[in-house]
């Protein structure tokens, strides 16, 4: 188990290096001079040179890269080009918000998608199966931001069941905070619901016909127990890999959904950094976005290796 863990962690290091190199290179290609962006067009060459030195832009490119990378590893993400506040502080405010919405969204998608998939597989070929399959495909085909718009219009503005925008932080008022995160989370959950339902259905169908399930049934184990204890447990394993993969899409979706619902999360942070040409902020946030995805994938890999011993030893 320990070797598996160590190997898995080590193998994400080259990925992180590739990503930081790619982000840094793209950011070097940016048009314009950051000192002009900060000081304005009327800045004197002297004051620009002073600022360049203070920001470390006078150093060779590889030194700049290494000091930036070192900063990320030690939690120093640089300072915003716009208001000179530490990027790490803004991240500290936005990250819990996004984490909360992502977790609520993941909870919704698993608790809707997996039972639907089981139902579909058990009633294979029936009316419920057809209905659930069409629902799943629709959930995959609907644009998350349009689902958000519909929820906002019908559920928030017409019915008034949920707030249509803004956010309350969890530590200020947990209940109101959850209330605010439901609509964005549902909009983000639709695609994973569809994906999880189809995956669960497919792997349940595969497992239901396998020998050990037939044996269990022959032993006289009840139908519900066969489906839930024997079939589902094995059908859930591929779900974990999928959850990790879907997380990348979820982090992308956050950019649109944060903007739509005015949620002060990661997505709005990077989008407003883009709009304000705050490239220091963008550069660090881009790395953090993929770091979140990498860590989540690591966690799902580890957790499914706990479920399935075969993976640890292969």
């Amino acid at each position, binding site marked *: 188990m320990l070797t598996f863990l160590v190997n898995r962690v080590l193998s994400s290091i080259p990925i992180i290096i590739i990503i930081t190199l790619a982000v840094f290179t793209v950011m070097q290609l940016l048009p314009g001079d950051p000192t002009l962006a900060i000081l304005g067009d009327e800045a004197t060459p002297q004051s620009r040179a002073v600022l360049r030195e203070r920001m470390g832009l006078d150093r060779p490119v590889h030194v700049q890269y290494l000091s930036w990378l070192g900063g990320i590893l030690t939690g120093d993400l640089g300072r915003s080009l716009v208001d000179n506040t530490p990027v790490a502080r803004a991240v500290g405010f936005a990250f819990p918000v996004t984490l909360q919405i992502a977790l609520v969204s993941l909870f919704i998608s698993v608790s809707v998608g997996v039972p639907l998939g089981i139902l579909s597989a058990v009633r294979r070929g029936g009316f419920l199966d057809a209905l659930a399959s069409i629902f799943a495909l629709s959930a995959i085909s609907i644009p998350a931001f349009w689902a958000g718009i519909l929820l906002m219009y019908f559920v928030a503005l017409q019915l008034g069941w949920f707030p249509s925008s803004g956010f309350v932080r969890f530590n200020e008022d947990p209940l109101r905070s959850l209330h605010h995160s439901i609509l964005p989370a549902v909009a983000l959950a639709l695609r994973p619901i569809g994906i999880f339902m189809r995956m669960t259905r497919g792997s349940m169908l595969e497992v239901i016909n396998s020998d050990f399930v037939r044996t269990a049934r022959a032993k006289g184990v009840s139908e519900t127990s066969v489906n839930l204890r024997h079939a589902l447990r094995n059908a859930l394993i591929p779900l974990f890999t999928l959850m990790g993969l879907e997380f*990348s899409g979820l982090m992308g979706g956050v950019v*649109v959904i944060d903007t739509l619902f005015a949620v002060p999360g990661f997505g709005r942070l990077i989008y407003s950094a883009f709009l304000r040409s705050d490239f220091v902020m*963008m550069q660090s946030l881009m790395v953090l976005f993929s770091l979140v995805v990498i860590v989540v994938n690591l966690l799902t890999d580890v957790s499914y290796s706990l479920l399935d011993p075969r993976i640890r030893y292969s």
Partner: protein
Amino acid sequence: MTFRRVAKQFARRPLAMLGLVIVVAMVLVAIFAPQLAPYDPTKPDFTAILQAPSSKYLLGTDEVGRDLLSRLIYGARASIRAGIIAVLIAVGLGVPTGLLSGYVGGWLDRLVIMRLTDAMIAFPTIVLALALAAALGGNLTTAMLAIGIGSAPAFIRLARAQALSLREQEFVEAARALGNGANKVMLRHVLPNAVGPLLVQASIAIAAAILAETALSFLGLGVQPPTPSWGSTLRIGTGYMQQAPWLSLYPGLAIFATVLGINLLGDGLRDVLDPRDRA
């Protein structure tokens, strides 16, 4: 499998045929937009601002009095074109890389290409689009490029898996034994046998690419005004949600119908062409 048999099996699936009908209809709408649109989609009419749907304007008008139906008809062009071009970029990048990776194997496969692919997967497409938009400017070209790069890993992995399994097949070994070089074996023997699953993946990828394009246009990073597009109409629509809900409703319906059609088509193709997932 011959084309005729594929077509026959496909025609027996009602949902797949429904998908085909939707997709063909949308492509025709995009091609014949000038003939179909009742009004000029870009010409403002300040006497008809935010009109509700009526017999004159079937789906209503937008904030500068342009006919929404005409804008949606023209909007099909941007989204369908973006979906196809982005997937062509993804196929162009992904398929040769994946075939090479799987066929050649070794350190190139495991240490270089697979690690790069993992890195690409960890980078959300929308974030990549933000980076490219910052560097190259936010327009449909950078959006398509970002979506193309973002969709490439799926093709790399699929082509690699196909090459890995086909490499060991007897007919490929025979072709190799006859003295054919790696390039020829890959192009003549491996690629043609991987076409089915790649086609299925391409259809799913087009659906996802259209979703990504509309999301980027919604953020203002894709199609630029005054060119009509579904995503940017929704962006404007959210500002008038109470006064003019039709602006928030119909463009999304157009995206949803198109993407659902492509996914139905893709599911049908998968059932017919890809024996792996035949559950």
